[in-house]
């Protein structure tokens, strides 16, 4: 459940789970090293991400035109395009397609939009089996969990935990211990599913407006199975995923795979432009594309917040985030964890529901340094925090939250006054050097910090005093 209290609780229990912290620390350090190894030339990286940023910014700049161009080219090629403003509408569209084709079973490639929609759950309620075919997604689906990372969904589990799960829930007759054995079992089980499936569902990494082409990036081949073998393919895509030209794709593909997993390229890059044509022997006869808004057009209306939509979902921001690495993906209780989630979720679900996520950052900026499309994540975080406080100002005085909000605002106002006035500032510094160390540990607010950390000791002299004694002056 999405709430400040739940987040604090989950964070606390994650921090006290050495197994989980070990799993994440190992995985994230590995991913950081791999990424570093494929960007040996800093200048090349900066040049490439400048191009990646431009390609994405250009697409957002022309978004309504490009979406119409994409729609018209897809339709010309035989791909049927549908639009959904909300996740409920998108789910309904998938259901109607499934019913139209009398589908009972669906196999899925990895798609974050389908996670946004909670599509599996929805389809199961309507008696349709939706099976994840990406190994990581499959592992957590069998174990009734949610992804903890957008690229490596089962990263929170170690090999022993997965082996237990395979033994109990997938293949009880053997106890597979190695990753090789478990992979072999999954291959066998999932091939049967691909063979039988009525519909394949996939996401979209890039959609090319000028040709009406849907691009998919993957290593396992499950994405190719889902988009080639079943008679129907349904592609789910956020409206921001469009790019103008085919030529925009190579730099973005390079940035995506290198930033995500440190690979020069993934095993498969799959470009789909039409359903099966006359004379062709395989490929789906029907291809549907569902364009989902879910708050994106709202983000698009603001110059700064729009930059959230530049994202190509590589996950580098979470791999490098000191907060994410320590608490893991589940603590956030959201589809998108880590830095990108902290700016995306409050905008999708509303600041009143998810605004607290914007506070869960030290603003260290590690995410901004590695972002392959230059999303100003820290600036957006600050903007959301600011907006959240402003919204609080609008809470009616009779509301029980009003007092807390008022107190918060008062503290910030006081802080602002002191820091804008040299006399007050000097008085405050003097006060802290003389009396600061007498502040009791148990003081409200302060004890949130001191209950788990040693109390900081204030210096006897402040920086200005020290500088003066050294004979330094401002001039």
């Amino acid at each position, binding site marked *: 459940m999405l709430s400040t209290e739940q987040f604090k609780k989950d964070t606390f229990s994650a921090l006290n789970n050495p197994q989980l912290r070990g799993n994440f620390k190992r995985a994230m350090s590995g991913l950081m090293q791999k990424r570093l190894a494929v960007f040996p030339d800093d200048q090349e990286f900066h040049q490439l991400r400048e191009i990646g940023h431009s390609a994405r910014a250009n697409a957002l700049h022309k978004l309504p035109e490009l979406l119409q161009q994409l729609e018209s080219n897809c339709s010309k090629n035989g791909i049927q395009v549908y639009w959904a403003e909300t996740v409920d509408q998108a789910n309904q569209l998938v259901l109607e397609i499934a019913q139209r084709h009398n589908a009972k079973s669906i196999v899925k490639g990895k798609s974050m939009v389908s996670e946004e929609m909670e599509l599996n759950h929805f389809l199961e309620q309507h008696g349709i089996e939706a099976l994840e075919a990406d190994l990581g997604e499959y592992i957590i689906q069998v174990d009734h969990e949610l992804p903890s990372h957008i690229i490596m969904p089962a990263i929170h589990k170690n090999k022993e935990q997965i082996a237990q799960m395979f033994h109990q829930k997938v293949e009880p007759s053997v106890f597979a211990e190695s990753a090789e054995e478990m992979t072999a079992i999954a291959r066998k089980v999932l091939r049967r599913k691909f063979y039988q499936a009525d519909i394949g569902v996939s996401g979209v990494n890039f959609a090319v407006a000028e040709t009406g082409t849907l691009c998919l990036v993957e290593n396992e081949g499950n994405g190719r199975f889902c988009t080639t073998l079943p008679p129907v393919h349904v592609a789910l895509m956020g409206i921001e995923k469009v790019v103008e030209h085919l*030529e925009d794709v*190579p730099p973005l593909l390079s940035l995506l795979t290198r930033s995500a997993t440190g690979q020069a390229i993934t095993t498969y890059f*799959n470009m789909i432009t039409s359903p099966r044509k006359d004379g062709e022997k395989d490929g789906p006869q029907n291809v549907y594309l569902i364009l989902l808004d879910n708050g994106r057009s709202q983000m698009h*209306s603001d110059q700064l917040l729009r930059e959230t939509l530049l994202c190509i979902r590589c996950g580098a921001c979470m791999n490098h985030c000191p907060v994410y690495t320590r608490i893991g993906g589940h603590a956030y209780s959201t589809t998108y964890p880590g830095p990108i989630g902290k700016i995306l979720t409050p905008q999708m679900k509303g600041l009143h529901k998810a605004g607290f996520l914007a506070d869960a950052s030290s603003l260290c900026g590690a995410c901004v340094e590695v972002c392959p499309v230059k999303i100003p994540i820290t600036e957006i975080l600050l903007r959301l925090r600011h907006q959240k406080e402003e919204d609080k100002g609008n809470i009616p005085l009779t509301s029980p939250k009003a007092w807390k909000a008022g107190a918060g605002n008062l503290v910030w106002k006081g802080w602002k006054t002191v820091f804008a006035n040299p006399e007050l500032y000097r008085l405050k510094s003097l006060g802290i050097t003389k009396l600061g160390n007498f502040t009791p540990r148990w003081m409200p607010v302060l004890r949130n910090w001191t209950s788990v950390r040693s109390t900081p000791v204030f210096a006897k002299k402040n920086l200005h005093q020290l500088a003066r004694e050294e004979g330094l002056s401002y001039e």
Partner: protein
Amino acid sequence: MNSSAASRNNILTRLQQTTGVLQKDSRNFNFHEGSSFDEGKRWSAEEKVLRLKSMMEAVHTEVHLCVENTWIKNLCSILEQKQINKILYGAKTGLAQELGNLKQESSEMMPELIDYKDPIEESKDLLFEIDAAITTTRGGIAETGSLILWPTPDEPRLMSLVPPVHIAVLYASEIYSTFREAMISENWSSEMPTNALLISGPSKTADIEQTLVYGIHGCKELVVLVIQ
């Protein structure tokens, strides 16, 4: 499906309104003209072959450098060594002729050649049971060690995915330096095929504790014969 038209209208209206409201973005988005991001990456014919080979070998691909007249012998020994009894091929490709000739010459050594001649609805069992498939390629990419495939009615999409072994024949003269160079030289944007693929190794996963394992859903082994 009724809601789709209304949603389309609402989404586009919202997006168009913002385009009008926001200040005109003055940044230069014309980044392709004079773009140089891959211009430093142009290699000689020989360098391209070696780079493709080393990139592909790094991800578990068998790469054999062959010459025009004798490559078919290389193929024979690979098939024998891998004990392939049945191999899927496209009967109307140039490749098929060579395979057919060879089959006549040395029928005992060669595995049974099987044509993917019926639509998948009737070929499913065949595809899921066969040992290997051999296909042509449209070209290669040296920078990333990738094969370019545009599947055709004669060599359909699933040939490079379902059988556990995929053997691909690549002409060295068709290796480009970069993906961008390939799509621009061949003017891909003028007409994209039903499906275009870049394949860079056998299928793989690292979803179990980041341990790299080859052969998850797609082929387990990828063999590339580069003909120089």
